[in-house]
């Protein structure tokens, strides 16, 4: 539901059904709402059977990449090795706040999903890596884990199955890059949160060098519903002409919109109706200018493009962007896109882990140029330079932070070039005046 707003009839509340319901946070309350039935059922099942159900359901990773969850799990074989499950609760993508609400309102739903996932990949130990700034979600999830241990849901004899399932909650120190799966593992191991070179992939050598599966909060929280109701039940969500995108998805909406919040809709939902009916459209007297549909790392859409987009993995790609994490950022006609994009690049320049040359230097360079244009000191050559830097930064680094910084610049320049040019035209001297000395881009 569109917490904090009342649920819209066109929403499909599965994960968000109990948002705002304080009783669902407690173990008893969660049990009364059908909680832990799926886990009870799952611990009696063969892990491979669970993997098959999840594979059949068509569930894809909700963290942004959209990798089929069942296939990811099927990389984990009963090979007698120590396996780990990591739950990525480091939700840091600007514009995204869906996992936060899951953890605030239904922490037991996550614990259940994590325990179920651990069992399904032959792991005895799972880690929930929570973003450092998430103080309330951290408290809620920690409490839920505590309650689950006390009730025998977790521990040496999880749900009386005779199997050991341990869940540890780890709080990060607040770095965007620690949401990258291998950086998260480094951070969990006590190292600097730098992404690792792949291969080896986590399924081969992940956390502490052991085969590891890492899933997003939303993904793991969804699994118990699938196990409980079956893969066929889950397939009802989605548009009939696209079997590749199945299920419900939480979208976090923020920016210049009447009703910002979290909305859960079936994949395949028309973006125009989502923006105008569910979210109430722009504020009175305003017009939507641009939308970032999937977190700050995906290409920006113009209003026209957004209104024609369909909210699933393939639909967004068809519109030239990505579904990403489902963080929808809306800009109305008051916004200066140069300023908005400069703010985004500054974020990436601040968060670059500094490993790869292109990212370390490129994110900061782009930011300096963007801010110079924003401040009316741009020159016409800057636009070509920006595109050239963005090109040199894309597809050449260990992780995609570098690409993520280049993306809004490239799509912004493509779609809102006139705003850049207007800023540059307003530069009275038409030449670069080097800015005041700045020790850092931070």
């Amino acid at each position, binding site marked *: 539901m569109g917490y904090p707003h009342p649920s819209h009839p066109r929403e499909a509340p599965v994960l968000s059904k109990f948002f705002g319901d304080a009783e669902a946070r407690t173990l008893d309350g969660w049990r009364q709402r059908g909680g832990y039935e799926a886990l009870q059922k799952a611990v009696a099942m063969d892990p491979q059977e669970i993997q098959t159900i999840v594979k059949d359901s068509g569930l894809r990773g909700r963290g942004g990449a959209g990798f089929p969850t069942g296939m990811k799990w099927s990389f984990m074989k009963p090979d007698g090795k120590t396996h780990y499950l990591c739950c990525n609760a480091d939700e840091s993508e600007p514009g995204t706040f869906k996992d936060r609400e899951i953890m605030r309102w239904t922490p037991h739903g996550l614990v259940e999903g994590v325990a179920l996932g651990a069992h399904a990949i032959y792991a005895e130990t799972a880690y929930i890596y929570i973003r450092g700034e998430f103080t309330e979600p951290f408290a809620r999830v920690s409490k839920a884990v505590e309650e689950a241990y006390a009730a025998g849901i977790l521990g040496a004899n999880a749900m009386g199955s005779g199997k050991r399932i341990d869940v540890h909650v780890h709080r990060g120190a607040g770095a965007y890059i620690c949401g990258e799966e291998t950086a998260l593992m480094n951070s969990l191991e006590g190292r600097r949160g730098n992404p690792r070179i792949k291969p080896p992939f986590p399924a081969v050598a992940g956390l502490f060098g052991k085969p590891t599966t890492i899933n997003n909060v939303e993904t793991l929280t969804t699994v118990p519903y699938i196990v409980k109701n079956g893969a066929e039940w889950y397939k009802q969500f989605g548009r009939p002409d696209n079997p590749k995108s199945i299920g419900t998805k939480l979208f976090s909406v923020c920016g210049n919109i009447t009703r910002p919040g979290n909305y859960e809709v079936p994949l395949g939902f028309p973006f125009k109706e989502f923006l105008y009916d569910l979210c109430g459209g722009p504020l009175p007297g305003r017009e939507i200018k641009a939308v970032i549909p999937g977190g700050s790392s995906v290409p920006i859409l113009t209003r026209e493009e957004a209104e024609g987009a369909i909210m699933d993995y393939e639909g967004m790609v068809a519109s030239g962007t990505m579904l990403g994490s489902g963080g929808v950022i809306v800009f109305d006609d008051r916004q200066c896109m140069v300023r908005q994009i400069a703010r985004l690049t500054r974020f990436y320049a601040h968060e670059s882990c500094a490993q790869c040359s292109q990212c370390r230097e490129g994110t900061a360079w782009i930011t300096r*140029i963007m801010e110079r244009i924003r401040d009316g000191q741009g020159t016409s050559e800057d636009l070509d330079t920006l595109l050239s830097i963005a090109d040199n930064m894309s597809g050449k680094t260990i992780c995609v932070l570098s690409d993520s910084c280049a993306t809004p610049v490239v799509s912004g320049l493509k779609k809102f070039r006139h705003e850049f040019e207007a800023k540059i035209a307003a530069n009275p001297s038409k030449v670069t005046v080097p800015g005041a000395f700045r020790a850092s881009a931070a």
Partner: protein
Amino acid sequence: MADVKMVSLTIEGRPVTVPDGMSILEAAKTAGVLVPHYCYHPGLPVAGVCRMCLVEVEKMPKLAPACATTVMEGQVVHVHSPKALEARKGVLEFLLINHPLDCPICDQAGECELQDYTFAEGRADSRYREPKRFNPVEDFGGDVLYVANRCILCTRCVRFMGDVVQEPVLNVSERGDRAFIGKAEGHDLTNPWAGNVVDLCPVGALLSKDFLNKARAWELDRGATICTGCSQGCNAVAELRDNVPVRLKPRPNEAVNQYYMCEVGRQTYREFARRDRADQPLVRLGSSLQVSEWDLAINAAVQAMAGKRLVVLASPNLSNEALFLLERLISRQSGHGVFRVVRGETVALAGAPDLALREERAANTTGARLFGFAETSSLEAVVGAGDALLVVGDALDGVAESALAKLGALVFVGTTVPLVVSASASVVLPITNTLEEEGTFTNLRGRVQRYLQARMAPGVARPSWFVLTDLLAAAGGAAPFQLPGDVFAALAAVHPSFAGLDYEALGMRGLPVITADHAEATV
């Protein structure tokens, strides 16, 4: 050796076959193709962060880092394709935007990989219009200075201290373009092996304080040598400016010192740069030593030693050739040979197998023992009244004049003339130091390694093997040696330990001797 699966691929149109699991970068080396790189170093774990070694591999969607991509059967790799060149040009531009471009005052200039690759493949101009990042210079302790503005964050130094020295003193601090190499609070780069970060640094960010502003790289003459700092026998390069040694750097040898050299070894260049050298033969006339001719001095030395019991005090930094000639001299005159060696604490380089600063601080103690010299700590205990003492290479540090008073004769062959010698020697013969001659040392694992002449000798000083050949001949022995290789051939012919070794075949990496003691080293 276990069977290793071999993989065939094509790099820059050249077919190569290499063991499975090798990186494209290493495979390219075997094809004679250099893939430009910064963070990769064969002695360190792969980081894959500089992104300089991106190459185009057919059928791969993106450019691949050659250091972190293993070879595959049938791969076709393009190192110098337009796409790869464009990517490297981009990296070079990124590395230079915040770089101060202060090559004219940078010690690394001339041997800087940033300079080299920029000249080869970089942009001719800069598109950077913004203020540059600035960080102050930091003293890292030990011999190391950190010039953060020149740093490209390749992390070679961090990985060396963490994985090889295993003292993780260095780290990457901060993020983004504010990042710099940080040093753990309260720790300095005082480990004797820490100085290697200066050599590992591909740019001018880590500098040797000792070498700071002493010379430009292009002014230096270089010669291959063996470090005389201890019995490890690290392969080294002596670098000289106007015939003055200014530094020693490691010369890679997987079997001995990998890519490294310790601070004690590096500092030995100072001994070779001494200016108070013996450069003329001296013969005692009455109470003073007078300059003489070589022939006269050699004859005077033989006469002084004639008819007496001969004790030879040899330096364990003498070559195998000199020690062999001394052994022959001793055998003609019923004497015996001893050596003194300075000892110190062993400091292992934790991450490198069998590499340490050794207890015995001389290059050829193993050779000295093989040629029958016994270690002594007290000269007085081994010389009797009326003996002839032939000192070769030992500077008689700590030997009192009184200890030499009972001698029948003192013949001093050395690189300097100590005070006790000018008071009591009959003859002084000037010899060259290690940098001024060629020869071989035997390290503590029994590896025989050659060193070459890197420097001109002072005055008329002659190599020790040359002087000792003359002494042996003047004393009536057979010594038909024209070159150090001749001496080596003779010693290899008679000494079982050196059997089968050939001077030329030793090459610049050396070969192990065959002895029971060192049998394990020959495997």
